[in-house]
């Protein structure tokens, strides 16, 4: 589903964010991506969502080589990816309903289908009663959940989440992870970037660890506390 072949990313100015990264995430797999700030987690997610282009190497989504696609194809790649970011990326002048409906409007769904899907998505993140609210009327955690609802509303094949539980309390964090698990059982490929090693340890999923742009481990995280101390 997602394959990185010797991918490096150097930003203008010479900062090397990723070095020779190799990994493969199979369709329907769920994994965590961890590492300290500046390790390259966000860059890796940006490369998958075509917000950045790899300096060297190849990234494949299914059989599509992202380094070869044309500008006009980028939106269609993004439609297959649900993205959840720390800054929520919500449209502040539109209601929660309109925010969540956006990917469906773009894809040309009918009004009826949009209404059904938006309500279902908001139900899943426990915000069904906030349909007519505006983002500024919600807390940071609620805004985060609106972002999650928007990411899952068009049932994408891949979900990329950058610190999705960062603004949530432990119970809600667990609810969101359970939601990801539920989506994963339906066949959605999920990659979650997080600092929360406790969460990673509890969930026991495959974990990719980045350090200064290099992938240092790939597998189940054995000793969370030990790793933390060794950093």
């Amino acid at each position: 589903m997602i394959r990185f072949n010797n991918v490096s990313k150097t930003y203008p100015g010479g900062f090397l964010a990723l070095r020779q990264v190799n990994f493969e995430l199979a369709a329907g797999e769920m994994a965590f991506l961890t590492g300290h700030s500046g390790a390259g987690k966000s860059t890796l997610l940006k490369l998958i969502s075509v917000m950045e282009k790899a300096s060297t190497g190849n990234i494949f989504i299914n059989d599509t080589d992202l380094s070869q696609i044309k500008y006009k194809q980028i939106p269609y790649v993004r439609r297959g990816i649900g993205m959840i970011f720390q800054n929520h990326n919500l449209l502040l002048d539109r209601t929660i309903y309109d925010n969540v409906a956006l990917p469906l409007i773009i894809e040309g769904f009918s009004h009826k289908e949009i209404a059904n899907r938006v309500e279902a998505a908001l139900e899943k993140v426990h915000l069904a009663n906030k349909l007519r609210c505006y983002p500024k009327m919600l807390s940071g955690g609620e805004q985060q959940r609106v972002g999650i609802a928007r990411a899952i509303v068009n049932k994408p094949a891949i979900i990329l989440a950058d610190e999705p539980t960062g603004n949530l309390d432990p119970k809600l964090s667990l609810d969101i992870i359970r939601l990801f698990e539920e989506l994963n059982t339906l066949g959605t490929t999920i990659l979650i970037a997080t600092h929360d090693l406790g969460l990673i340890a509890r969930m026991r999923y495959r974990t990719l660890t980045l350090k200064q742009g290099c992938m240092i481990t790939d597998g189940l995280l054995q000793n969370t506390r030990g790793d933390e101390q060794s950093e």
Partner: protein
Amino acid sequence: MSKVILLQRLSTLPMRHLQQAIGSLGDLWRTPLASMMTILVLGISLTLPTTLHLFVKNAEKITQQWHSASEITLFLKLSTSAKSAKNLLQKLQLYPEISKVSYISAEQALTEFKLLSGFGQALDYLENNPLPATILVTPTKRSSQADVVKNLLSKLEKHREVEQGKLDLDWLTRLEAMAKLLQDIVISLAFLLCLSVVLIIGNTIRLAILDQKDAIAVMKLVGATDAFIQRPFLYAGVWYGICGGIFAIIAETILAQYLTASLNKLTYLYHSDFVLQGLGFVESLWLLAFSIILGLIGSYISVRQHIRGIEPTTD
């Protein structure tokens, strides 16, 4: 994607266009002062070349009334008999450049001269009529330009019955030169003002795009194509074009009404039946269509230039 789903999605396309068109009108409505200012500037910019167009149109109408300025007078030789003159008249009627010929015999000329000159009785003492017979030649509309008339005159002067041909060419040449200059001025000004309309709309749309930069980035993040994002801005350009065009038509109608009153007084003094021609229905439609096209061009240039540069960020 199955064919059924694809067809369902396509069937919603006109509705989405309508929604985006109405939505962009709503955006203009939400910023009434800024929108009104832009529309006024556009309307005035369109009114100026339209006024000049009407000026040229009415000037052409006036010069058509002065068409006789290119009339050729052929003075026949004194020895020319009435029969030869009639023959010449028939020959001249066959010229494709000539629309009308009229013959004034020497006797008619003398009678007219007596009446107009005030020398009536004095002229009775003359032994012979000193005036020649004349033929008045009116060229066709197509052949009334100075150079064509000049050629025609030289052709007509070659007839052996003709003593001399006369045409006030200088005056006609000057009139034509002035008309040409006026036309060129109108075209240049119209071009510049249309360019300014495109630039004004382009700049207004650019500001709207920058104002919605974050929203555009989010839309791109969730898979919106540039076509989807730019559509409301293109519709905004069309709305500006429609409103600016309507303003120009109304302004032009009021202006024509206002000038008609003053012009009527002037034409009465000159005993003229000239009536100022305003903007006709078809011309109004053309102005509106032209204004919409300018709006679309301005907004298209702007969206092409700016939307592609906006990319989503995670910061």
